[in-house]
């Protein structure tokens, strides 16, 4: 049991799980033994919707390098787009 802090976040978006697309409401990030990845420890990220039950989950298990590269890629992609373009507060064009 090498599990430490779990970072929980609220999310607004959608994910595709085993049963198809569902609305995301939460996420968890933790460093622990993976379920499937062939490494002793990984950064595990769960995208979930608790109201839809445990099967509403998209899970990824990344090495530390991969997780950091993902963070950087997200930041670069956001920086390259107009500020607020993907914001939940943005109104649809013409509205």
């Amino acid at each position: 049991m090498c599990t430490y802090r779990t970072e929980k976040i609220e999310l607004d978006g959608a994910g595709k799980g085993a049963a198809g697309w569902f609305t995301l409401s939460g996420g968890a990030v933790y460093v622990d033994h993976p379920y499937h990845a062939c490494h002793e420890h990984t950064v595990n990220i769960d995208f979930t919707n608790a109201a839809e039950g445990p099967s509403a989950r998209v899970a990824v298990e990344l090495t530390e390098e991969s997780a950091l590269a993902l963070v950087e890629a997200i930041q670069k992609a956001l920086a390259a787009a107009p500020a607020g373009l993907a914001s939940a507060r943005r109104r649809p064009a013409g509205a």
Partner: protein
Amino acid sequence: MNDAIWAGTVSIAGHESAELEAYLARPLGDRPRGGVVVIHHLPGYDDPTKEIVRRFAARGYAAVCPNLYSREGAGVSPDDQAAAARAKGGVPDEQLVGDVAAAAAHLNALDHANGRIGVIGFCSGGRQAFLAACSLQIDAAVDCYGAFVVNDPPAQFPLKAGPLISKAPDLSCPLLGLFGADDSHPAPDEVTVLAAELKRLGKEHEFHTFPDAGHAFFAVDRPAYRPPAALEGWKKIFEFYGRHLSA
């Protein structure tokens, strides 16, 4: 010699009568036999754990592993159940004890049961095997690298898992402990403290710490697998159960 076994999914009534999925394996022969409750690791009720259950049956024991995360929903895959249980802080100690008691009763109700029960747990299940052996009348317990039996978990630890050493006076049976020298949870100093406390209390125990092995060295599907430690560990387990679970 009849070494045929039956193995498959059964349903048992766990703590507070909750319906639990469980994986049972038992010999088809009619010799009296002891029972073994297998407590799965934190990642859940997975195929390698079921393989462990079959391994005990092949050696002449009836064995059952209750899915401790069954309450997360029937028909939910075990990895999703494990993630959901983890998000809730894991399995409460009281619930674990009730589920193990139910699994033991299920084994004792089977034909040819000799009434003797062993428990074995891996990772978080190692701690839970110790908990069960301090809370129930068990005949032999095996703790495979269970952490937080002695030490407090780190700050902001997400699971409800506190130290259990204060329960050591209630340990009801001999304890076999199998640990890795390179493990940090439990680290060798934690194992040393537990051994000293059991010695002080006059509790029968046998601890082995294997070199060049860390946490989860029995896990055949993980990079942590260490064949020399695992093979020697299995030998110790079967010697131990052979002494304590015979009719």
